């Protein structure tokens, strides 16, 4: 059997036998990326909605910044945040470097522009007349925004999936900010790099298969929410 077949089998074996280290790594990956995605929603949805509904000088420039941010290279984010979090860095007093919190910060910086940009696009595609009609019927501004977000929930869930997909799969920032420390900051992507470096290609493949599997499960659940209400 080929190496890839062996890797898939090894993945199933590791999951079935409940290898504690693999479970811990998988669980940490999910925790870090879920926390970062949630934080980016808390920031990105209001920011995206506000940007979609407001008009101010320089707005086009801010929108371009957000759109550029949607493609931020994780390794660049990792480098900047690492330097900030260094013991001698501006935020060194927090002593967060090489902790899961540092990884959450880095992944938040990666996901927040994605969520902001997609929210912006989602809210803007709701017709203007609809918005004016609501205000005309006496809706408060907050009520109006809430209805708009509900109206845009399908593309918004796409924003959640894109944000989560962007951070669970990134390795550059997690490697620099977490340090890939065994039992503390090792996640699926960094463990895959390490096992490849060690020549344990079967384990590296197994970890990749687990990563694909949980990314699929999370997206499947989100798609179910997204599409289910339509049926």
């Amino acid at each position, binding site marked *: 059997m080929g190496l890839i077949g062996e890797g898939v089998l090894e993945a199933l074996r590791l999951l079935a036998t409940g290898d504690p280290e693999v479970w811990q790594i998988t669980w*940490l990956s999910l*925790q*870090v990326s*879920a*926390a970062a995605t*949630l*934080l980016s*929603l*808390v920031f990105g949805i209001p920011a995206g909605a506000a940007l979609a509904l407001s008009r101010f000088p320089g707005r086009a420039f801010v929108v371009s910044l957000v759109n550029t941010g949607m493609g931020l290279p994780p390794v660049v984010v990792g480098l900047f945040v690492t330097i900030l979090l*260094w*013991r*001698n860095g501006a935020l*060194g007093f927090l*002593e967060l470097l*090489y*902790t*899961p*919190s540092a990884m*959450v910060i880095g992944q938040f910086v990666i996901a927040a522009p994605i969520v902001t940009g997609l929210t912006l696009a989602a809210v803007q595609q709701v017709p203007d007349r609809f918005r004016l009609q609501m205000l005309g019927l006496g809706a408060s501004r*907050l009520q109006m925004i*809430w209805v708009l977000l509900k109206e845009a929930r399908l593309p918004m869930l796409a924003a959640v999936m894109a944000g989560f997909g962007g951070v669970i799969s990134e390795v550059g920032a997690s490697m620099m900010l977490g*340090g*890939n*420390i*065994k039992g*503390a900051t090792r996640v699926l992507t960094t463990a895959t790099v*390490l096992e*490849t*470096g*060690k*020549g344990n*290609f079967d384990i590296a493949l197994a970890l990749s298969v687990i990563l694909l599997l949980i990314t699929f499960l999370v997206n499947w659940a989100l798609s179910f929410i997204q599409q289910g209400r339509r049926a």
Partner: protein
Amino acid sequence: MVTRFAAVLSLVLAGLLPSITGPAEAQSSIVILSTTTSTQDSGLLDVLVPLFEKKSGLTVKTISVGTGQALALAARGEADVTLAHAPGLEKKYVTEGRMSNRRLVMYNDFVVIGPPDDPAKIKGLPKALDALKRIAESQSRFVSRGDKSGTHTLELALWKQAGVEPKGAWYIESGQGMGQTLGIANDRRAYTLTDRATFLAFQKRVDLPILVEKDRPLLNIYSVMEVNPANGPRVNPKGGKAFADFMLAPETQAVIKSFGVDRYGQPLFVPVAGKKDEDL
């Protein structure tokens, strides 16, 4: 609806964040060890670090990068102790006062491997320098780490001593770790310089034989150094010294001596606590 969403969100966040943030640990209980990839990739640190943590009650954060970066981080005060394998570079940092108390811990050796048909005719040469000269003269492909690691530093020193400036289509810089570099050398049927531990770990995937070995310049010497507290305000000199002392303790040296025998049938490192560079 707004409040329900907010309530769910704050509950989820409240559940997630503390579990991964944990209580802030007192700074002096954490030791940051900057070290080379080979000590981690060989699995040695996975054995030694838990031993040290149990004995000292300190927590070690192992940052495993190339030797160049490991020393650069330490020089900025971003680590407390460094385990590296580039004597020339290490001595420079010690002379500059960035690192102190450099002590030898162990050694293994480098080997030159290459394609079995050996186009540069280096098999069995006693001197690594002659082998490199022949590789350059015959323009045979050679894969270099190119990443400022300890292995790369040694390779560059060897080229310099051989009087060759490695340049041209035959000289491939991978910019990656030893494992990936071995893969590239294997794929391109090229020569390369590798530490024996990584070579042994990759025997399943790499079929290039050892062509030159056991020459004094090919010794791969690992030293431990403490970080000068003047490098930065948060250096933990006590913790750094505790780890350095641990690496030289007789019990630790005994563990190093037998490490790898179960997996490779031979030890990967030779412990040398108390010796000097000249003794080897």
